[in-house]
C-alpha cells in the first residue's frame, strides 16, 4: 500500500519536474534544430533531425567570451573571499567596534538595485579609464557577493566553539595563526558555498556587463548572447546553442555541489 502510494508520488513529481524544466528542454531542442526547420509550424517537438550547425557557429564565435566569463568569475571569487573571510572572522569572533553598524550596512547594501550601482560605477570608471576593462567588471561583480559572503561566514564562524580558539591561544598562536590554522580549515564548506555563488553571479551578470563593458572587444558570454540576439533574429539555433553552452557551469555545479547551493539559498533565512 505505502509502496504504491510512494510510486504514485514519484510519478507526479516527475511530471512536475517535466513541466518546470520544459523551457530548458526547449532550449536544447531549438539548439539542435536546422535553420530551415526553425520556422516550421507547428514547431518540431523533438530534434528528430538534429544538426550541430548551431553549436559550430556558437563555438566559433563565443569561445573568447566564455574564456572572459571564466576569468571574471574566478577573479570575482578571489576578491570576494579576500574581503569577506577576514571580516566574517572578525565579526564572529573578535567583537570589533561598530559590528552592529556593519551588519546594518551589509543589509542595506543588498537592497541597492544593480542599476544604481551601475550608474555610480559608470560615473567613477569614466574618470579612471576603467570602462570596458575586465578588472572593472570583477570589482563591480564582487559587490553582488561580498555582503552575502560576510553574512554567511559570520554566521558559520559564530558556531565554531570558542574553546577551539581558546586552546589555540593558550598554545601561543596569534590571532592570524588561529584564523589560518583553526578557523579556515573548519570553514571549508562555507568557503565552497560562497565561492559557488560568487562565481555563478559573476558568470550570469548582465547588468554590469551591459553598462560598464559596452564598447569593449573583450566581452563576457552574457553580453555575447545579447549581441547575438540583437544582430540576427533568424539564427535562433545558434543563440540557443550558446545559451546551452553558457548554462554548463550551472548544470555542472548543480550535479557536484547541490548541498552547498541549498545551504547558500537558505542561509540567513532559515535557522537550522
Amino acid at each position, binding site marked *: 500500500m505505502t509502496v504504491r502510494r510512494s510510486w504514485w508520488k514519484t510519478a507526479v513529481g516527475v511530471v512536475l519536474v517535466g513541466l518546470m524544466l520544459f523551457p530548458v528542454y526547449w532550449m536544447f531542442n531549438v539548439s539542435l534544430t536546422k535553420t530551415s526547420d526553425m520556422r516550421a509550424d507547428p514547431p518540431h517537438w523533438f530534434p528528430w533531425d538534429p544538426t550541430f550547425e548551431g553549436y559550430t557557429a556558437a563555438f566559433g564565435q563565443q569561445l573568447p567570451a566564455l574564456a572572459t566569463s571564466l576569468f571574471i568569475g574566478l577573479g570575482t571569487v578571489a576578491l570576494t573571499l579576500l574581503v569577506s573571510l577576514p571580516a566574517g572572522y572578525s565579526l564572529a569572533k573578535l567583537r*570589533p567596534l561598530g559590528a552592529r553598524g556593519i551588519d546594518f550596512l551589509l543589509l*542595506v547594501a543588498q537592497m541597492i538595485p544593480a542599476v544604481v550601482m551601475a550608474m555610480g560605477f559608470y560615473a567613477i570608471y569614466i574618470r579612471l579609464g576603467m570602462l570596458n576593462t575586465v578588472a572593472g567588471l570583477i570589482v563591480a561583480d564582487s559587490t553582488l557577493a561580498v555582503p552575502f559572503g560576510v553574512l554567511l561566514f559570520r554566521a558559520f564562524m559564530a*558556531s565554531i566553539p570558542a574553546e577551539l580558539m581558546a586552546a589555540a591561544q593558550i598554545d601561543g598562536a596569534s*590571532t592570524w595563526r588561529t584564523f589560518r590554522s583553526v578557523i579556515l580549515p573548519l570553514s571549508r*564548506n562555507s568557503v565552497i558555498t560562497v565561492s559557488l555563488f560568487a562565481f555563478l553571479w559573476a558568470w550570469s551578470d*548582465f547588468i554590469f556587463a551591459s553598462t560598464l563593458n559596452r564598447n569593449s572587444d573583450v566581452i563576457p558570454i552574457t553580453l555575447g548572447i545579447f549581441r547575438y540576439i540583437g544582430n540576427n533574429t533568424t539564427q535562433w539555433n545558434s543563440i540557443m546553442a550558446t545559451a546551452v553552452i553558457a548554462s554548463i557551469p550551472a548544470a555542472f555545479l548543480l550535479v557536484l555541489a547541490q548541498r552547498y547551493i541549498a545551504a547558500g*539559498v537558505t542561509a540567513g533565512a532559515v535557522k*537550522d
Partner: protein
Amino acid sequence: MTSVRTQSVTVRRAAHEAPRRRSPRWTALAFLAPLVLYMLLFYAYPLYRNIELSVHDYTPRAFVQGDPEFTGLANYANILADDTFLRALSNTAVFTLGSIALQYALGLALAVFFHRTFRLSVALRAMFLVPWLLPLIVSASTWSWMLNSENGIVNSVLQAFGIGQINWLTSPDTSLLAVTIANIWLGIPFNLVILYAGLQNIPADLYEAAGLDGANAWQRFWRITFPLLRPVSAITLLLGLIYTLKVVDIIWIMTKGGPADASTTLAIWSYREAFGTGQPDFSPAAAVGNILILIAFAAGLVHVHLQRREERA
C-alpha cells in the same frame, strides 16, 4: 549548516591567562579593515555619486567635463510629474506583487509535496533548482523564443486548443503578463528551497498528534504547517520583494520595457534613461534609482524588524 545564533559560548578569559601580545581591539579592526575599505570605495562612493548625479543636471557633455549645474530636487519633481512615472509605478506593483504571490504559492505547494520523502524525491527536488542557476540571459532568451508570436511553442499549443495567436511580447496588453510569467518561473526554486527548509524545522510529532486527533491533510496544513511557517514565509516574501523590485535583465532582454512602456518598471525606466537609448540621461535615471532604493529600504526595515522578533522568539 549555519546557525545564526550569536555566540552562545563566549569564553571569559581568566585573569591568570597569558597576556596577549597585541591588543585584541586592534586585531579585530585589522581583520575588518579590508571590508570597511571595500564598502567605502565600492558601495558608499558609487551611492554618493548616484545621489550627486540626481541633484545636478548632467548633460552628456557635463558628464565628461564635470561641470554640471546644481538643480536640487528638480530632477525628482520632474520624475514625479512625468507621465511615465505612474505607469512605471503601477507596472512595478503588478510585476512585483504578482511575481512574489505566485512564486510563493507555487513554491509552498511544491515544498509541501516534497516534504514527505518518496522514491527519487531528493533528485527531483534538486532538478527544480535548474531555473534558478541558469544565467538570466539564457532563461530570458528561451522564454522570448517560446513566446514568439509566429513560431513560438506557446502559441502553437494554444492554437491546438483553438486559441488564436497572442502577440505576447509585442502587444501592450500582454507584455507585462509575459515578463511576469517568466519571472515567476525563475523565482519558484528559491521559494521552494527556503520553504522546504522551513518545513523541515516543524516537529514531526505535531503531525502525529494531529493525525491521532483525526485531522485530515487539509486541516493539518492550515492548522499546523501554515501558522508555524509564518516567520519563514514573511522572510521569503520580503526577500522576494527586495529582489523583484530590482529586476532589470529579464524584462530588458524580453521586451526592453515596451511596447510603449507597457512593461516598463521603475528599474527598467532608470536603466533605459541611463544606458538604453544611446543618449545617456543620468540625472533623471539616478533620481528614479534613488526612489527605488527608498522603496526597497522601507521593505528592508520591515525585514530587520521581523528578524529581530524572530531572534527573540
